[in-house]
């Protein structure tokens, strides 16, 4: 594994290599190198299986981190290839040409995070959020609570008490605060 990582560092400039769990290693690569690296891993290094593609929203840094999880059935090792992309107009090379099923993940990422994968099949279609009319819900600026308050019905007669106010009323009604 170390020889492989050394070579990838030279050939693809991978960085931030870390062992997350036994047999799971993650590494980072620049967006421009990502597709070439993944292809190399699939075709020459035995990482023939795409476990999944997922995304983490680092809103504070203005980036999405895409994670391509690849598996090697030969030595049972797993590699997580991480790619940082801009949050604004987020776009990434499609890898449906490498694994046909990748388009499903890419369609989901488009729906949940708003990331574009030009050329990926059926990108424009709804995936699980039929009729969704808001910003992609996994983007962290999406306010789940506000959305749920405005969208879903409320049961009649529900009341909730604030712990602090309830305790004041019960235990020290004449104390505390401006009086």
């Amino acid at each position, binding site marked *: 594994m170390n020889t492989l990582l050394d070579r990838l560092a030279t050939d693809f400039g991978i960085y931030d290599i870390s062992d997350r769990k036994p047999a799971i290693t993650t590494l980072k690569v620049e967006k421009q190198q990502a597709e070439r690296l993944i292809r190399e891993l699939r075709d020459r290094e035995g990482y023939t299986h795409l476990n999944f593609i997922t995304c983490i929203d680092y809103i504070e840094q203005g980036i999405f981190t895409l994670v391509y999880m690849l598996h090697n059935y030969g030595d049972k090792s797993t590699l997580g290839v991480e790619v940082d992309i801009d949050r604004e107009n987020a776009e990434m090379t499609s890898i449906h040409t490498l694994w046909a099923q990748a388009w499903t993940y890419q369609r989901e990422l488009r729906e949940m995070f708003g990331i574009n994968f030009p050329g990926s099949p059926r990108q424009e279609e709804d995936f699980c959020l039929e009729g969704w009319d808001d910003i992609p819900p996994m983007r962290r600026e999406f306010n789940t609570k506000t959305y749920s308050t405005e969208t*879903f019905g409320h049961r009649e007669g*529900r009341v909730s008490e604030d*712990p602090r106010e*309830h*305790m004041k009323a019960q235990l020290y009604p004449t104390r505390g605060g401006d009086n």
Partner: protein
Amino acid sequence: MSLKDLLSPFFVWQRAFEKPWTNMRPIEERPGAPAYRGFHINLADSCIGCGSCHSICQNEAIDMVPVEEFSGRPGDSGLRPRFDYGRCCWCALCVDICTANSLHMSNEYTWLARDPTDYHFTAGVEEKPWQDSELGYHRAEGYHLYPPKRIDMDMLTADESVQSFDEVVNGYSEEQAKLEADRCVECGICVATCPAHMDVPDYIRSIRDGDFETGLQLMYRTNPFPATCGRICTHRCEEVCPVGITGQPIAIRWLKRFIVDQVDSIDYARILDSEIIENGHKVAVIGAGPGGLSAAYYLRKKGYSVTVYESQETGGGMLRYGVPSYRLPDDALDKDIDYIISVGVDIRYNTIIGKDVMFEDLLGEYDAIFLSTGLSVPSSMRINGEDHPRVLSGLQVLADVARGKDPGIGRKVAVIGGGNVAMDAARVSRRLGADVDILYRRRISEMPADPEEIKESQEEKCNLVEKAIPVEIMDTGSKKQVTIKWGEAEMVQDPKGGRPRPVLQEDRMHTETYDCIISAIGQGSNLDFITPAVQEQLAIEWGKFTPGEYQRSELEKIFVGGDVANRTADAISAIEDGHHAARGIDRFLKPGAYAEN
């Protein structure tokens, strides 16, 4: 058509009598996975009703509702979460945030009811078949949505601290304070426990917002001694902080101090001052300790003309003369007191009631009086030889040091007692270069002193001797020394169920000679300044007042508070007594202003 085709329908019918290959009731026989996020389980007895589940729920599926059997438990709001399964999406954020670790999910996922209102229940209070399920989603060990450990406070090491009277605690930096403030779940359970009911979650939020002026305003609503309490408060709030159940409580006291330290006293007037509308009433306050000055501050804010009578040369009471400067530097205390004076409180120092001013004159001259004279008389050990000149009182030693006077303790000292005065007298003695033994009649675990004082005094190499009962003080023939005879104690269970009692073991006696013995076994009051006729009308038990509603005594004009009128005898209780008496005096003198009357 072949014969087979002709007969095939009959072969199919034959199957109807065989055991089916499919499960008849698949739902009952297919339990959820072991960590499935199914229906909620709340261990209602461990839950403290902090409402974090309610706050974090993105679907507004959780209400906090009162449950009678949990009402009034300390550190417990008496509320419990009620789940609306019409809105729940089983994301388990409520389980992940649960401070008490009482909320889990079972792996049960089927519940059939005809009435949709049934899917609404108070977990752990209403009986449900899954309540005792072991399976289902539990928060993983060590997994927290907030850091369970508090931000370490930068302190002098014990070796450094005994070298001087410099403040031991350095205070948080802004970065540290914000990180610590970030751990608060804003439940507000602490507000009930704080004797002054300070707006803790709100001022902690002001740190997160970087708005320290709002923080200061919030603190002054309930406490005009924030610089002081930010250092030496007994911080009972932290004992009930829900974050402390599975981690370390928020450092509420240090955060309070942080806010005060950010604001220059020059800016106090601009931030805090509001117009004072004189109401023409006059109130006298006796004692310029935290209780008296708190009453004075809040009365002044309500428009009263307030005169404080203080026997000592400066204000602060026990905060000034009883708390050493390494815990509470004078400039921090002065920051609080100077602002109280600046709103127009008149303090008459060096004025002894009963000598310089007569109590009955005050009764005639003022519309109301607040008494907060504290506990200033050292309790007696009641053993032979106690009046030996080398037996000093802890209070006197601390007061001398506070005034910059040498208390003359020598190089080898025994401190008798296990309270904060004993710990402070011992730690002061270490700073004056003495070796210190602390003799305490019970076990260390039973010492009434704050745990951190006990810990720090041990770190500063005070030698704690537990289960040591003083028996006799003896003269050595030298004017500079004194001998104490003390015996070991055995703890004996109280048959009535009280706390174990130390019983002297006559055969295990020790004698030791010291340069002085510092007695610090407690304090009593001195109420001689109150004329006997008035004393008779006040309910005084064991030298302490027993105030009624709004700190009022039996006499309608006299309100009482502070150590001389409460059991807790700490600064924050005195501050609340003063504030509450101010509310009471305002209700007494302006009865029309309150709807409740």
